[in-house]
């Protein structure tokens, strides 16, 4: 797992979920859920699964929750495990996120989301382009101006590999602004902390990162958010969207849950019902607020449509960039 940055930040916060397993009362939907986590303890997937499990059990929607970490292959090991042992994994929900789309496109693992049962997309984080607070660049136009003036001394950094999420977001913005998405210099860092340090030290001029991470440093007066990939301004923040500045980019890094292929339809429906009921609970609100997650609920077929759209969006761009 290379996208350690947003991962770790939320991670710790979400580890609270260790408490788990409170007994259910009246409105229980499911007796038990087993969470399969494709990465190690303390990662972003881990935090999402344990946070969801905490909300589900403490609100009594689910009786008990158990967790299993299975890292390897950028998530591929867990996906293969879920498919191979599908018959015995009726209670299992695997957590995953945008990289399942990117990595099946690049062929890191042979499977894709189509080989799994889609339960629901649950939360997400928008992306953002930021500059240091003392930068001369004031908005998206300023950023493009700086790039057009002197492309050779202009670099955008990010916490993912070339062709990874942060790079794609920056390339999407360039493409939407009518520039060549392959033209700018993208500097990859292996973690968010290093990328942010690179930005503040002046090594790179702008940084592509997750909104929840950017907003914390913007509140501290260290960075300025130039544009967010949300359709409209996010509640409680005055950061401008890219859309309102004429850069037509919408992108969300989602997280959601998958079940084994071919499992009982009634069981999948019960899982979806449990997640849908979860959004109404105080317990979920506490977990969500603590982690700074944005509710983006996409159950069943809506999840499929969303994933297909994202696959097209990312696939097209990666072909343009020459990664496919």
């Amino acid at each position: 797992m290379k996208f350690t940055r947003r991962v770790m930040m939320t991670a710790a916060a979400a580890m609270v979920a260790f408490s788990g397993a409170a007994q259910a009362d009246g409105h229980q939907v499911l007796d038990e859920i087993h969470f399969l986590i494709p990465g190690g303890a303390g990662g972003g997937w881990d935090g999402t699964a344990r946070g969801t499990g905490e909300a589900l059990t403490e609100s009594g929607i689910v009786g008990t929750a158990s967790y299993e970490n299975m890292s390897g292959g950028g998530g591929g090991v867990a996906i293969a495990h879920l498919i191979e042992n599908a018959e015995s994994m009726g209670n299992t929900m695997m957590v995953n996120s945008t990289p399942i789309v990117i990595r099946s496109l690049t062929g890191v693992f042979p499977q894709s989301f189509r080989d799994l049962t889609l339960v629901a997309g649950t939360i997400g984080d928008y992306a953002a382009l930021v500059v240091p607070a003392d930068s001369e660049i004031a908005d998206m136009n300023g950023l493009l101006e700086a790039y057009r003036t002197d492309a050779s001394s202009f670099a955008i950094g990010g916490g993912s590999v070339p062709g990874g999420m942060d790079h794609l977001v920056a390339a999407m913005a360039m493409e939407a602004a009518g520039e060549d998405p392959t033209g700018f210099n993208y500097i990859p860092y292996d973690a968010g902390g290093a990328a942010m340090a690179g930005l503040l030290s002046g090594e790179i001029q702008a940084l592509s990162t997750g909104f929840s991470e950017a907003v914390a440093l913007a509140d501290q007066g260290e960075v300025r958010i130039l544009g967010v990939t949300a359709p409209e301004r996010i509640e409680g923040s005055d950061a401008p969207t890219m859309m309102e500045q004429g850069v037509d980019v919408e992108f969300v890094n989602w997280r959601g849950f998958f079940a084994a292929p071919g499992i009982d339809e009634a069981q999948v429906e019960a899982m979806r019902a449990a997640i849908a009921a979860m959004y109404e609970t105080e317990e979920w609100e506490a977990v969500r607020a603590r982690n700074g997650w944005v509710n983006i609920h996409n159950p069943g077929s809506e999840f499929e449509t969303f994933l297909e759209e994202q696959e097209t969006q990312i696939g097209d761009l990666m072909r343009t960039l020459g990664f496919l």
Partner: protein
Amino acid sequence: MLEGLMIGLQTAINPFNLGMVVFGCIIGTFIGMLPGLGPMSIIAIMIPVAITLGDPTAALILLAGVYYGAIFGGSTSSILLNAPGVAGTVATSFDGYPMARKGMAGKALTIAAISSFAGGTIGAILLMVFAPMLSSVALLFHSAEYFALMVVGLSAIAAFAGTGQVGKALMMTILGLIMATVGEGALFNMPRFTMGLMDLQSGFSFITLAMAMFALPEAIFLVMNPARSAQGGEGDSSGKITGLRITREEARAIAPVIGRQSVQGFFIGVLPGAGATIASFLGYAVERNLATKEEQAEFGKGSIKGLSAPETANNAACTGSFVPLLTLGIPGSGTTAILLGALIALNVTPGPRLMVDEPQVFWAVIISMYIGNLVLLILNLPLIPYIAKILAIPRNYLIPFILFFTLMGAYIGQNNATELLILVGFGVVATILRFADYPLAPLLIGFILGTMLEDNFSRSMQLYRGLGFILERPMTLGLLVLAVVLVLLPSYRAMRARKRAQGVADGD
């Protein structure tokens, strides 16, 4: 500042918070001894407990105790079993384990505890005084300088290039660098050298390689050679741990090491892209170069300076890594990233305004460091004779114990059984290499520094579109020159000594 210190002290010294730090230190020390569970995982495990305390100060004090306990626990397994659980304690095993084999396990643990304490405490003082000024230092380094710093770190291998071993040490380093390229790098979105195996997608895991290079061959040597007990034949044959106390000469020898490495380690820790591992290697390399010729010969064979240097630097660097965390909100290491998450969950956002907006949290962190370090020392010194007794266990029990410990360490981090196959495979290779008298430490140093070396090098290449950064950035050039000097200086000294000896002979 004094006022802030008093606020911090007031909150920290109440029975409940003191209880928390003791609890944290004990948990940290014992879990930290298990390889595969470094400070990062232990803190992650303890965060829910800390958050349920509700009060940020109490939570931070608990976590600081866990942190320092885990670092100390990690040194224990390096010294006693040659099984470094985290990269930061690899250099500790270079001299710590040979000391334990000479029957000086107790003394080695004592030196480690005192060095850790001094490094952590001096680091905390530096943090308290200089933190606001240092936030700009943290941003002084670009990728080019980090690359140069990693090259300086690699010069630590010179310590293992004894007579006739220069070639072998270099070959092992290069092998380590090669092994670091396996998997999906940070800068390329294609897996390299994975042979299509999904288990190699993220590269070799540090803990598996460390166990395969150090702990497993040691266990195999113990099996093959009945005369070689874990404590070595030279020591007291009854298995009693002798020489727990440090003599006055020894104290005098390590005092300057501790002084230098606390400061050096702290400043390296301040840089968000460096951290405790590089600090420990650099500390080892620098102290070896500063040592006298007789002392230099001891390095790698059980030198107290060689043990004290990385232990001090490692702890000082851990403290230093709090500078970018608290003043900029930037986590410089995995552990500080987890701590940042915990702070945010407690509604504390670190950054330039933290000291102004919430001084009590800032001071609580500093005070918790002092207390964490002190409690750890008080707790551990009396425990050392008992911990060191592990080595007095009869070999027919000790060997299975080490093997179990090693296998568990490799498995626990990844929950992946393939790691065990990799461990055994490399363990056998490492044993053969040891038979052929190849030093294995350079391999591990190369592996640990390889990824960072390559990432920073390619980033600089991409930013400057070529190698121009070496000449354009004076600090990069300076560091690279320093690396060359560190490598060549010992051989130059040796050459001069040989010439002089010859001259004397000729004159006769």
